[in-house]
């Protein structure tokens, strides 16, 4: 901040010849990095790292939340309980997490890529849907979940009414163990796809056109052009979308809390919902913490697997 040239636009400085080299002031050779990162690191440490470490610690105890002094050390006892628990079993909640995340990753990525391509290619017809595109994602999940509870009402709901009007078979939606998870997925796609579509649009907007044009001159069909050129070029963006969708769906909570309460019969009890239920509702804090550690490990595992398979160019994304 030795302000001799402050008013000058930064980019213009390149043109002038230096009087002297000042390597000591190059950021990369100083230790000033700490000063720049300290505020963020402090907040992050206090509210993410410390609570995470604490969760590891609590997971070793039969934790008495009302009075921690009365807690009893259990070692790995809470982790052993993972395999003894019956209602729900640990494996079923892990499976529900993977079911939900898998559907969101595959469905969400495919749907948003398709929508992005449609929106990019369609003409004026589409202006209205451009407006609508992002809207669901901007609504509070808790608010729109409440609406979808009524849409999914098997007796008075909109979904039932529409299928009925079209003479299609109806569903019990959230009221049955088989259809509850698909119903939650439908809602979650409705809420999330706007976000990932915009990310894809961003990727499409900066794609160079030369390759596509060359392909078209070579007589490639639209599908071939997409498959061999566009899709390939979009790879870093796709990797990002897949990673972020996987992480957010493994951690999804609000829609399960509001739409299905983890039921019926634990059919929508995912690991991330169970963590909350055990730790906070059922006051089984130590067990809940052990589940949280497992959820953390599962998420890290998927992140690492993805990094292994990603190419070097985009590994900075996750």
């Amino acid at each position: 901040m030795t302000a001799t040239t402050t008013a000058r636009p930064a980019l213009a400085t390149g043109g002038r010849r230096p009087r002297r080299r000042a390597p000591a002031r190059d950021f990369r050779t100083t230790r000033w990095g700490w000063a720049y990162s300290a505020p963020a690191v402090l907040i992050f440490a206090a509210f993410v790292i410390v609570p995470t470490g604490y969760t590891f610690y609590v997971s070793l105890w039969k934790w008495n939340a009302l009075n921690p002094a009365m807690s009893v050390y259990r070692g790995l006892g809470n982790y052993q309980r993972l395999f003894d628990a019956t209602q729900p079993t640990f494996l079923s909640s892990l499976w529900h997490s993977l079911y939900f995340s898998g559907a969101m990753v595959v469905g969400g990525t495919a749907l948003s890529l398709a929508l992005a391509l449609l929106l990019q290619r369609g003409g004026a017809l589409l202006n209205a849907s451009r407006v609508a595109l992002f809207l669901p994602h901007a609504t509070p999940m808790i608010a729109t979940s409440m609406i979808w509870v009524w849409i999914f009402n098997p007796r008075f709901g909109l979904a039932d009414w529409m299928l009925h009007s079209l003479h299609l078979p109806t569903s019990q939606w959230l009221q049955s163990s088989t259809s509850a998870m698909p119903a939650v997925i439908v809602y979650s796609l409705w809420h999330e796809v706007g976000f990932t579509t915009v990310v894809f649009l961003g990727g499409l907007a900066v794609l160079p056109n030369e390759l596509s044009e060359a392909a078209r001159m070579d007589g490639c069909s639209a599908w071939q052009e997409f498959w061999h050129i566009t899709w390939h070029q979009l790879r870093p963006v796709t990797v990002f979308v897949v990673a972020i969708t996987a992480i957010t769906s493994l951690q999804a909570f609000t829609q399960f809390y509001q739409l299905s309460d983890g039921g019926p019969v634990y059919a929508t009890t995912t690991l991330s919902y169970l963590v909350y239920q055990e730790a906070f509702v059922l006051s089984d804090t130590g067990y809940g913490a052990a589940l949280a550690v497992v959820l953390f490990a599962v998420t890290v595992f998927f992140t690492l697997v993805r990094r292994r398979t990603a190419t070097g160019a985009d590994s900075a994304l996750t």
Partner: protein
Amino acid sequence: MRYRIAAVASLAALSLSACAGGGTPATTTTAPAASGQELAVPTKPVTITFEEAMTIGTLKPAMEKLVSDFQAKYPNITVKLQGDPDYATMYTKEKAEVQAGNAPTMGQAYESWASYFQSGGALTPISELAGTDTPTEMSTFYKGVQKDLALGDGKTWMWPFNKSVLILFSNADMLKADGQAAPKTWDDYASVMKAVSKNGVTGSTIDPGSATAAAFGTQWFEILDKSNGGTLYDADGTPHLNDAGAVTALTYLKSLKDAGALATGKNYPGETALGAKKGAFDISSAAGYGFEKATVGGKFNLGISALPAGPAGPVNELTGTNIVVFKNASTDQKAAAWAFLKFITSPAEQAGWASTSGYLPVTAQALPLMQDFVAKNPYETAAVSELDTAFALPPHSWIFKCQGYEATAIQDVLDNGAAPTAALGTAQTACTAAKAQG
């Protein structure tokens, strides 16, 4: 209970290890011997807080009247209401506040919640407030209510508040048009339900509850079990969730469902279906009268009757909560809280509260003071008489989880078509494990 952590940001995890290892003296978990001295009402200004789920929604006027009457009598005491929208949220908040060392003076609590709080040393026993474990006021309460105030140690830890029983709401016009009378037994009820289930009408829609919250559907199952002669839980909390009575009860529900006379839903589905003329009956709390009336909105005559009876006679279950006084309050606050508890259960206040809220008075002495209300609501007499016999589940912390397992079994049978024996067997296993965990 109160310990300090010097550096929150970096040392929390480390210093807590010291705490958990027994660095602070464990608080007492048993009721101290009664002092024989009742706490005197404080004369200097004191503020007490009350965590409740009444002031959000239609019960606000009734609740606020209790408070303003009390404050008029004791001008130096201020009662601050901390309203929560529903019981599940309230329980979460109360636990959070106790953990934060920020407990309210008093809070509404179910028996199993009170047991959990007591196990963590977070409650004040009534004996510390009244000087005796059995204050004279208790003898004026209905017998079922009296029995509902003790915890597992046999001592009194709760004071009654919004008590009610279940009653049967119906679409009187629909029943009349079909030539059906109000059912007297559960067998009658089943046949009427099946008879009216046609043309898009389903006899009744219930909320079976969920793994984390019981609902009226759960309580209906508990009532059916007892009216079949079953006992879901011994006094010490030992579960019998797959005994004959329970299996019969759940099989009964299943047969109704299979006949298309029963549906399941969420968020007071019975009320919605009844109001939409898609249901003939709704089993709900007597205190739900105002809500039922609003939903029906004059579209038809709302019928109200006592619950049908089973082979073991008429059975009803208490609904609603008690009040507990938390431990961290100052002596003045405890004294003020005790004055508040005695005040709101006095006959005059109970008469006013019951007439405006729809909850039942906890003492028969209130009835002569609310004759207008009783005349307009003929079900009231029958409902309060059931307060003498209505049962409550035994007060143990794991019952909260076990009710979740009951609800899950009901869901499994009604929504997934599972066999009642198998579903209840699973619930029994899980509940036994929960009891062992404590």
